């Protein structure tokens, strides 16, 4: 039966897993939701380890927390951390309906699980068999025997699924290069030919005490030069203001002026 250590581990990790799951649902930011999910996944992995399913536990942490969660984070990165979903309901009363269904499903599950009777003998027999299995073949071998014996067809056919996914990703996302890529020399030749920015785009501003790609250079009349910062930064509204640096410049000029007068 359940040992004390197992019970302690369960009562510490159980609430953590629930907390992670709730975080997934209620977190406002996508990254926080993903982290909540990762927490739940890791905790589940530990549960498997406690239940003597070493292989499954390790796989759970490797595959779900490692690979799948990374893919989630990649997606969030591609979509942009800042983008948040509209919380406006498009289907009227959807939230209430889903609430009712969730209550119903939870009631069903709790009701059914409540009917389960624990028979100490059967549980012990199951545990004995598990231990015997683990001792005789080992956890990994046991799973291998299932995969390559009983479930060999399901295992093999899944490959069709993976190949379809790879092929679909290529068809829908891979753009074949139709026109050859321009070399740097060709870009330079084109600039000269079109007589635009012949010397290249202006570099970002370099100031006495500040130097970064997000600070535009200043034109002779003191206006920021739009071309000197990357258009990506402009689109994201991440370009620094230059007023401060101009003030510093003026201050230094005034000091030099004062020094001369003395």
């Amino acid at each position, binding site marked *: 039966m359940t040992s004390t250590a197992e019970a302690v581990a369960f009562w510490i990790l159980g609430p953590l897993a629930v907390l992670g799951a709730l975080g997934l649902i209620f977190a406002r930011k996508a990254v926080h939701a993903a982290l909540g999910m990762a927490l739940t996944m890791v905790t589940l992995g530990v549960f498997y380890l406690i239940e003597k399913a070493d292989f499954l536990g390790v796989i759970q942490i490797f595959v779900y927390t490692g690979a799948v969660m990374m893919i989630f984070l990649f997606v969030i990165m591609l979509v942009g951390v800042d983008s948040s979903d509209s919380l406006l309901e498009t289907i009227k009363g959807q939230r209430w309906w889903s609430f009712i269904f969730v209550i119903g499903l939870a009631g069903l599950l709790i009701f059914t699980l409540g009917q389960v009777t624990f028979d100490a003998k059967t549980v012990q027999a199951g545990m004995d068999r598990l231990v015997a299995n683990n001792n005789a073949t080992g956890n990994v071998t046991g799973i291998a025997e299932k995969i390559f014996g009983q479930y060999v*067809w399901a295992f093999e056919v899944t490959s069709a699924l993976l*190949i*379809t996914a790879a*092929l679909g990703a290529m*068809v829908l996302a891979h*753009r*074949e290069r*139709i026109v050859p890529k321009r070399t740097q020399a060709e870009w330079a030749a084109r600039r000269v030919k079109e007589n635009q920015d012949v010397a290249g785009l202006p570099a970002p501003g370099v100031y006495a005490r500040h130097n970064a790609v997000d600070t535009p250079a200043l034109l002779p009349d003191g206006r920021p030069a739009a071309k000197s910062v990357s258009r990506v930064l402009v689109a994201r509204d991440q370009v620094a203001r230059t007023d401060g640096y101009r003030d510093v410049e003026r201050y230094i000029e005034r000091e030099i002026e004062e020094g001369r007068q003395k």
Partner: protein
Amino acid sequence: MTAVAPAAFQQANIDYLAVLPLLIVFGAALVGVLVEAFVPRERRHTIQLTISVASLVLAFVAILFATKHQGLTFGYTDGATSRRLFALAIDGPALFMQGALVLMGVLGILIMAERFGGVGSDAFTASGASTPGSPIEAASARAGLITSEVFPLTLFAIGGMMLFPTVNDLIGMFIALEVLSLPLYILSGLARRRRLLSQEASLKYFLLGAFSSAFFLFGTALLYGYAGSVYFGDLSKAVSDTSLGLNGLLVAGAFLVFVGLLFKVGAVPFHAWTPDVYQGAPTPVTGFMAACTKAAAFGAILRLAYVGLDTASWQWQNAVIIVAVLTMIVGAVLSVTQTDMKRLLAYSSIAHAGFVLVGVLAFDQRGVSSVLFYVVAYGFSIIAAFGLVTLVRQDGGEATHLSQWAGLGKSHPVIAGTMAFLMLAFAGIPLTSGFVAKFAVFAAAIGTGGATGTVLVVIGAVCSAITVFVYARVIVLMFFSEPADDTVEVLVPSVGTTFAIAIGTLITFALGVVPSSLLDLADRASQFVR
């Protein structure tokens, strides 16, 4: 109880001849992927088409051989409990469906391969990754890029469809569901014209399909919780072993699994995707989906209803009866208001799904054979019908609005006449396969469905009458009204497309005049192996 020593590794018993059709189709799909990687672009289309058609014909021959190798395969009988743990059930309904799917697949692929003198398939975009309307899209078309990946994708879909009615456990059914759906999601988004609509259709299909898969999976989990096994045999036994009474896990599980399957056939209220996807997807793909997905999904529904959950039928059949009634009524009534040819056929396919469900609810061997006959008869007609839709053009694009079909009977009598004949088949007029098919399902429902069966048949007959109006309206429009403008043209199809449309129409006619051979075959093939 003392500790039991674990059994030694038990190898799965495999009857390779019984699964050869599946192996051929999946193998050809893999070869198709390699062709994409290694063969120069100019030759890909021809080679892919040859591989696809040849492999499907070969698979059909293999199916004929497999009829001698019926039984459970890919698994073993557990020594201690003598449970039969087999992944596949090669039996009459499975092989009948496989044969039908392979033949309909050949016709579908022939229509997909139509080039109208271009470099690649006319229905598919030159570059699926380019933004619609962008210079890159135009440049790709000019550079002669083609999306010949559609052929291996279609083969994968056909493989999954063949597997769908063949599987013997819920996990296998879920995998088959995904194997057949995933390529269809991709194919739906690859139309050459009106690409935004196509991509929207693809995304809608994908999202809703993912939800329905989730429903199916959740139902599987609940049923596993109930029976302690995912095998249909164990499931059926677990139901008959326990005392009668509503079991929360069983009812909810059965309901959720059925939701996943009914979504695929487009039954109301899980039909919302059908019109949008049928309209947005490339027309040959729509035809292929309408025929083959529906057949495969009904095969799976039959297996689940007659093998897996047969003993529990009184717990779920009321829900399916409601779905069948809703499907017939909504499909028939909404098809009246349609003005777009593809949407009209989509709603008509929803109504047809309702009629087939009536046959499923007969709970009898005759019900099985009538469903098998219906999906084959409907499949060949709908492939030919969508094949004809690809031919009618205006300004280069497909003319799918009904007003564009006005007066087509005068300018192009053969095309309009064929379409009119197929419309009569959908309506269920005698001398077409549609009549025999409807008669078969309704007769089965009246024969063994009891009072509910009779009520269902009455509703079905009323709904058929409503749909007759829809199809008659199209026929009248084509033959008895003046064309709105004369820029609508009909392209001359290649040999492949002509062959596909002709065969589809001929089978529609033949099954209406001499249906007995296929009815007999369906009868003989209607016995499930357990």
